[in-house]
């Protein structure tokens, strides 16, 4: 088959299809999302099941059920998703699997679009799960297939851990051959599928034995190897491998350096690494995120009694935070080897405009936040607890309506904690529809149970917008496009015991403000659902841009400074202008005190 430009995420999906995946599950999260989207689009054609799950814990549990029935199963998530799925992972590793179970957990050094820079290689070693660390899309695709084989051979879940620069990198990839694979799928009763203290002890022992054997096997794994030769010695993993090779070329050191590429940080291929360590006294380890290889090599050196000078993150030759790149790696290698590099920095660059990601023109969240601010009162001391999604951007001025953001679902629970610590302090929790289904419901039940007068605003835009518009239980559509009964937020809340629930259109500002005010004073948990679809959904028709009536406009500028819409601009001393990007939501019409804006949705 001809080579194709595939993103790492697409390549991983094709690898899984080639490996004969039977069930795929996921919750969206950057940079992992497109793996599952690609799978979902192919599910019917290749005859496997694919579903977006409500969260990562659920996704892994569904996947685990399929795997112990003998099916090859893939589950994808971003790195913080693994925190949510930690419980089934750690127990599932003890009990093991029958069909191959591969978790693709995408890390995001930088971070570009994540809460933390946590290192899944570290998580894998904590959870005692083998982890493969690809350096580019082609390798990621081949490694998925290997991961299924390892998983079935050792009856263990296996993690593939790509990073942003593998997931969102395009490469000319050779697609694998897709052959049909027949395996008997049947859950056998009487297997070791019940976790129980005495079972755990036995399983723990078997697990450690298996990992030891696998660690030995990894010394001959085709993605772990030594390359080149010379006086210099550098160990690396993941995308850093490519940075190292390019940097060595730039520094003219490629012919005098031996590289050790480790693609299996856990279990660590000790035999291969020991040969490398014994040959060099001075070594450098280059890796992103945590010093995982570095620590493994330090341990190994101690174990086999080598006295080494091992550089890396512990002596700050390699940066301890952020993403690496060729320039940083070149500087690190130059520093370590005593070479000079020019530091070319641009002088005299004019001040550039501050361009931050913002809510789109016509975004319903802008109206919701504006209504929440209005209801709370301009100078109010109300704490706005926020959550994960596009609407985290509500923290930016002029909306400034997000004071906290911790993790999925925490808007609801953090509000309760703040209110408990500081009785009488008004809080308003704000989170999106997909996040509510992910992990908001338990927080609502907690508030009802413990009689906390929660004020919650659910921003229901009928999609998971931030990660690229995935459906969720409230949308009535599945990953593979089936139309199903949508789960009604209002009924869920009623079932949880919430007695004040109001659904409003946030662009209908007056109604929205009244609803939030009522919720704030309601005696008991109260929820306002701000319902309006994301402006970017294909089925949402925008309205004609609004028009400013120049006669009526008094140049007060409130339409610009109150809501920060990117479609409204105003040069000093001039009238405001409406740009082409205006979606006609009409929020500015409500904001203008002089009725000078017309048209749009209203």
């Amino acid at each position: 088959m001809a080579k194709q430009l595939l993103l790492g995420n697409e390549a991983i999906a094709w690898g899984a299809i080639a490996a004969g995946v039977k069930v795929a599950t996921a919750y969206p999260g950057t940079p992992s999302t497109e793996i599952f989207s690609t799978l979902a689009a192919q599910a019917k054609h290749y005859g496997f099941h694919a579903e977006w799950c409500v969260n990562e814990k659920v996704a892994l549990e569904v996947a685990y059920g399929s795997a112990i029935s003998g099916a090859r199963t893939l589950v994808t998530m971003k790195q913080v998703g693994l925190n949510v799925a930690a419980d089934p992972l750690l127990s599932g590793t003890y009990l093991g699997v029958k069909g191959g179970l591969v978790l693709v957990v995408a890390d995001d050094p930088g971070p570009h679009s994540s809460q933390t820079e946590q290192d899944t290689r570290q998580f894998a070693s904590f959870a005692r799960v083998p982890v493969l660390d690809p350096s580019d899309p082609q390798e990621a695709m081949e490694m998925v297939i290997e991961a299924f084989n390892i998983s079935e051979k050792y009856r263990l879940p296996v993690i593939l851990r790509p990073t942003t620069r593998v997931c969102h990198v395009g490469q000319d990839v050779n697609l694998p051959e897709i052959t049909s694979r027949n395996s008997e799928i049947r859950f056998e009763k009487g297997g070791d599928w019940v976790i129980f203290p005495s079972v755990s002890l036995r399983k723990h022992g078997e697990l450690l034995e298996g990992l030891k054997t696998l660690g030995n096997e990894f010394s001959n794994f085709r993605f772990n190897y030594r390359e080149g030769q010379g006086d210099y010695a550098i160990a690396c993993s993941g995308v850093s491998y490519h940075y190292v090779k390019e940097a060595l070329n730039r520094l003219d050191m490629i012919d005098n350096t031996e590289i050790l590429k480790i693609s299996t940080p856990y279990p660590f291929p000790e035999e291969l690494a020991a040969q490398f360590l014994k040959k060099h006294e001075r070594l450098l380890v280059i890796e992103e995120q945590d010093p995982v290889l570095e620590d493994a090599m330090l341990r190994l050196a101690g174990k086999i009694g080598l006295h080494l000078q091992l550089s890396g993150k512990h002596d700050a030759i390699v940066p301890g935070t952020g993403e690496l790149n060729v320039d940083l790696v070149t500087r690190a290698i130059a520093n370590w080897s005593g070479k000079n590099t020019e530091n070319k920095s641009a002088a005299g660059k004019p001040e550039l405009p501050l361009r931050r990601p913002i809510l789109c023109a016509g975004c319903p969240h802008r109206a919701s936040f504006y209504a929440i601010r209005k209801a709370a009162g301009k100078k109010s001391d109300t704490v706005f607890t926020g959550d994960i999604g596009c609407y985290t951007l509500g923290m930016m001025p002029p909306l400034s309506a997000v004071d906290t953001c911790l993790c999925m679902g925490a808007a609801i629970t953090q509000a309760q904690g703040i209110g408990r610590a500081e009785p009488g302090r008004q809080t308003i929790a704000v989170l999106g529809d997909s996040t509510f289904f992910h992990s908001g419901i338990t927080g609502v039940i907690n508030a009802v149970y413990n009689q906390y007068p929660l004020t919650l605003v659910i921003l229901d835009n009928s999609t998971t917008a931030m990660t690229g518009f995935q459906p969720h239980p409230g949308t009535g559509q599945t990953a593979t496009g089936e139309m199903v009964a949508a789960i009604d937020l209002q009924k869920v809340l009623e079932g949880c015991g919430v007695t004040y629930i109001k659904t409003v259109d946030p662009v209908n500002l007056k109604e929205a403000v009244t609803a939030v005010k009522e919720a704030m004073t309601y005696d008991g948990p109260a929820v306002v659902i701000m319902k309006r679809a994301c402006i970017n959904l294909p089925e949402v028709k925008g309205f004609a841009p609004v028009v400013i009536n120049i006669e009526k406009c008094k140049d007060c500028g409130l339409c610009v400074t109150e809501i920060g819409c990117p479609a409204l601009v105003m040069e000093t001393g001039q009238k405001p202008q409406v740009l082409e990007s205006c979606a006609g939501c009409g929020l500015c019409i409500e904001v203008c005190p002089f009725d000078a804006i017309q048209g749009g949705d209203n």
Partner: protein
Amino acid sequence: MDIIMCGVGGQGTVLASRVVGETAIKQGYEVRTSEIIGMAQREGPVVSQVRIGTKLHGPLIPDVSADYLLGFELAEAVRNIDKLDARGQALVNTHMIVPPTVYLGISQYPEEQLIDYLKEQPSRLILINANKLADQAGSTKAVSAVMLGAFSALCPDIDETMLLTELLTRLPERVQEINTRAFELGKEFVEGETR
């Protein structure tokens, strides 16, 4: 050959980088592209990197080493100009997308200074009003087509016909004519500038 494409979320830099990458693969080259998807898409700054050649390493282009910089927006071109080699070629859309922070008084957009700064650079520079040309072709949304057409006239290694074909296969039929026109206008503009 290393190409930086930068602009603002929604301008089509991701599309353009994939079109160039796919064309290069069809011409028999190895390709690496890199893009940042996610939070930055919402009117934030976006950068796509395309590397084309025979023995490629990682996906990221080192500083001061890109052969081409395609700036889809003026300020974003200045933000990324450090990536361009002194012998490189910048192609910069003079169209400005002024972020709300400027209207809120938090930052400024010094247009003239930015253009002067680009002119002071040792690299070669072509300024192009791609939005105007796209509008002339029939839609301001055809900016990527203008930029790709202009790029095809600058870069002898990428086959112009294949590049246009690759772009068109990724667009719905109803906008193909407009984009073909936009591509041609971009190309003609550069040919006029470099003649």
